[in-house]
C-alpha cells in the first residue's frame, strides 16, 4: 500500500484535502503499528527485554493467515462465508501467535532470566533469525500477494474528497476495540494488576504472592495475540506479505514503543500513531523512498534527546 497510489485517483484535490487524506492514512497505518508496538512495550515493561522476535511472530501470523485463506478457499467464497472465514482468522491466528510467543519465552528467554542483560537480547535476535528462516521455507523468498478480500469501495461516496474505504474501517474497527479491551484488562482485572505490579518491581510482586512466571507467560501470550491480530489486519489492508516484513515492521513498532516511552501502554499507541503519521507525511512531502530512513532518524533522535519517550516517566536508571 502506498499512500501515493491511493492518492493517484484524486490528483486534482487541493493541498488541504491531500493533507487530511495523508493524515487519515497515517492514522490507519499508525493504529496497525501500535498493535505490534503494544507487544514490544508490554514485554519490555515486565522483563526489560527487547523482544526482537516479536516482529517475526507477526510475520508468521500473516503467513498462517495466507495459508488458511488458501485452504478455506476464501477468495471464491460468498459474502457470508467470507466474513465467517475472516472472523475465524481473527481467532486462529492470534491464538497461534500467542502460543508461539509463550513457547519462545519458555524455551529461550526463561533460562536466561538471571543472565547478563545482553544475553536474552542476543538470543532474541537468534530467535528472530530462526523464525525468519521458517517463513522463508514456508512461503519462499519472494513477496507474496495477500488476497484482497475487503473491498476498497469508498464509504464516503464515490466522489468524496477524502477516501475512507472498508479497509480503513476494518483497521480502525479492529484496533480501537482491542486497545480499549487491553487497557480495561490491565487497569481493571486482578491479572492486569499483577502485571503492573510485576513491571514495577518483580521481587516485591513475588513477595506479595504473585506468580511472576505466570504473569510473564500471560504478557507474552497477550503480546503474541495482538501481533497475530495485527498480522491479519496487515495482510487484509496492505495485501503484500514477505518473510522480511517482520523485521521492518517490527522495527517501526519498536520505534513507536520507544517513542511513546517503552513499557508504557498508552505511550505505545501514541507512538504508533506518530510513526504512522510520520511515514505518511514523509512519503507525501519528503519522498517515498526516504520514509524508512526518516523513521530511524526519529528513533535515534528520540533515544538521544528524550530516551524516556513522550509519555515515559523520568527514571534515573534509564540513561
Amino acid at each position: 500500500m502506498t499512500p501515493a497510489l491511493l492518492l493517484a485517483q484524486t490528483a486534482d484535490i487541493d493541498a488541504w484535502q491531500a493533507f487530511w487524506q495523508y493524515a487519515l492514512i497515517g492514522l490507519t497505518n499508525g493504529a496497525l503499528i501500535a498493535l505490534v508496538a503494544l507487544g514490544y512495550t508490554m514485554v519490555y515493561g515486565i522483563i526489560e527485554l527487547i523482544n526482537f522476535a516479536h516482529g517475526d511472530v507477526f510475520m508468521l501470523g500473516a503467513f498462517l493467515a495466507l495459508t488458511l485463506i488458501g485452504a478455506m478457499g476464501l477468495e471464491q467464497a460468498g459474502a457470508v462465508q467470507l466474513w465467517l472465514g475472516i472472523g475465524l482468522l481473527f481467532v486462529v491466528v492470534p491464538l497461534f501467535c500467542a502460543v508461539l510467543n509463550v513457547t519462545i519465552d519458555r524455551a529461550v528467554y526463561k533460562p536466561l532470566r538471571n543472565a547478563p542483560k545482553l544475553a536474552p537480547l542476543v538470543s532474541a535476535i537468534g530467535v528472530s533469525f530462526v523464525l525468519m528462516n521458517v517463513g522463508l521455507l514456508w512461503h519462499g523468498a519472494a513477496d507474496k500477494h495477500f488476497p484482497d478480500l475487503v473491498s476498497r469501495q469508498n464509504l464516503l461516496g464515490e466522489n468524496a474528497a477524502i477516501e475512507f474505504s472498508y479497509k480503513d474501517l476494518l483497521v480502525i474497527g479492529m484496533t480501537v476495540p482491542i486497545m480499549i479491551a487491553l487497557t480495561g484488562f490491565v487497569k481493571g482485572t486482578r491479572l492486569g494488576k499483577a502485571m503492573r505490579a510485576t513491571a514495577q518491581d518483580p521481587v516485591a510482586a513475588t513477595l506479595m504472592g504473585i506468580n511472576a512466571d505466570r504473569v510473564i507467560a500471560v504478557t507474552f501470550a497477550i503480546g503474541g495475540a495482538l501481533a497475530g491480530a495485527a498480522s491479519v489486519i496487515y495482510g487484509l489492508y496492505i495485501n503484500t506479505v514477505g518473510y522480511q516484513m517482520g523485521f521492518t515492521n517490527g522495527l517501526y513498532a519498536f520505534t513507536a514503543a520507544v517513542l511513546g516511552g517503552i513499557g508504557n501502554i498508552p505511550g505505545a499507541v501514541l507512538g504508533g500513531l506518530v510513526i504512522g503519521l510520520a511515514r505518511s507525511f514523509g512519503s507525501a512531502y519528503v519522498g517515498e523512498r526516504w520514509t524508512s530512513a526518516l523513521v530511524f532518524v526519529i528513533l535515534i533522535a528520540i533515544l538521544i534527546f528524550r530516551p524516556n519517550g513522550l509519555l515515559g516517566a523520568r527514571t534515573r536508571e534509564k540513561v
Partner: protein
Amino acid sequence: MNKRQPAPRSLTAQLDRLPQWPLYLGILLLYPLLVYPEKVLFQWTEISVGMQLTYIFIYAILALGLNVVVGYTGILHLGIAAFFGIGAYITGILTVPAYPFGIGFVGSLICASLGAALAGLLLGAPTLRLRGDYVAIVTLGFGEVTRFSLRNLEEITAGMRGLNPIPPPTLPAFLATPLSWLGIQNDWALDYRLFYYLALGLLLVVILLLRNLERSRLGRAWVAIREDELAATCMGINAARVKLSAFALGCGLAGMAGCLYATALTSTAGPDAFDFSRSVIMLCCVILGGLGSLRGTLLGVLLLIGFDNVAAPALDGFLQRANINPDDNPWLTFSNWKLMCFGLALILMMRFRPEGLLPSRQVEAELHSEAQLHREGASI
C-alpha cells in the same frame, strides 16, 4: 575463593601449551603456493578455497573490529555492517574512474579507515552514554539509515548497482621480481594470490595491534568498563572517552575491511550487502568464538563465514550434481537454512556456552565463578 589448584599435566596438555599459531600461519602462507591452481579441490567444490579465504581474512578484520566494541568494551553494536559499507563506498568514491580522485589503494585504505572511524565518533559521541540495549537499537537504526541513504543517494552511490570498477592496487616495483620467483603473476584479476597475501598481511597487522592494545592501559580500561562501568569510573577511568575510543577503533577497522572488500570485489556491491543480517552474522562470529577473545573471533569467522561462503555452496553444488533435489525443493538446499543456523548458533551459545568456543581466560573465569556463586546462592 576463586583460586583453582593446578591440575597435573598430561602429555597432551603439555602439547597444548606449545604455541599453535606458527602452524596455522604456516598453513595459510603455504597453501596458495602449494595448491595452485586448486584443480582437485575446485573440481570437487566448484569454489576456489583460496579466493574465499581472502574474503575470510577480510571478514576477520571486520569481526576483530566488532570484537573491540562488543567483546572488550561490552557495547552491543548491531550496525557494524554500516561502517563496513562506509569504508567500501569511500573506497569506491576515491578510486572509481567516474570520480576525479583516483587516489589508488593505499590512500583509499587510509581514508576508508579514518572515514569510518570518524562516522563512528560522530554516532558514538552522543549515544554511548545511553544504556546497553538502547545503544544496540541506535546502532541498528544507524545501520538501516546508512543502507537507505546509500540506496537513495543515487547521484553519489549509483544506487543499487554500486560503484565500479574499483582498480586493483599497484604492486611496488621491488616486489614484482620476488613474486615472479614464487610463480605469482602480477595480475590481480587473474591470480587471487596477490590479494590473498595482502589481506593476510593486513589481518596480521591488525592482530598484532589488537594483541598489544589488549594489554595496554586502554585495553584494560575497555575491559574494566565492560565488567563494571561504575567501578571503573571510580578508579579514574573516563568512561565516555574510553568507550568512544573502542567504538571508533572498531568502526575504523570495519572501514578498513570495507575498503579491502570493495577492492577485492572491484565493486562496492549494492547497499544491501551491508544490511542488518551482515551485522548479525558478524556478531554471531564474535559470540560463537568467544567475546573478547582474539583467537575465538578468528575461529568464529572461519566456522561461520566458512560455512556461508564455502561449505553451504559446496554442499548445494554436490546435492545438485548428485541429483538429489531434482524439483528444486527449497527445503533441500543448505543456503536456505543459513538464517536458521546463525539463529540457532546465537541461541544455543547464549544458553549453554556464553563464553564462546575459545573464550578469553578472563571471561571464562568470570562466568565460571558467577555460575558458581549462583549455584551457591541457589543452594542456600
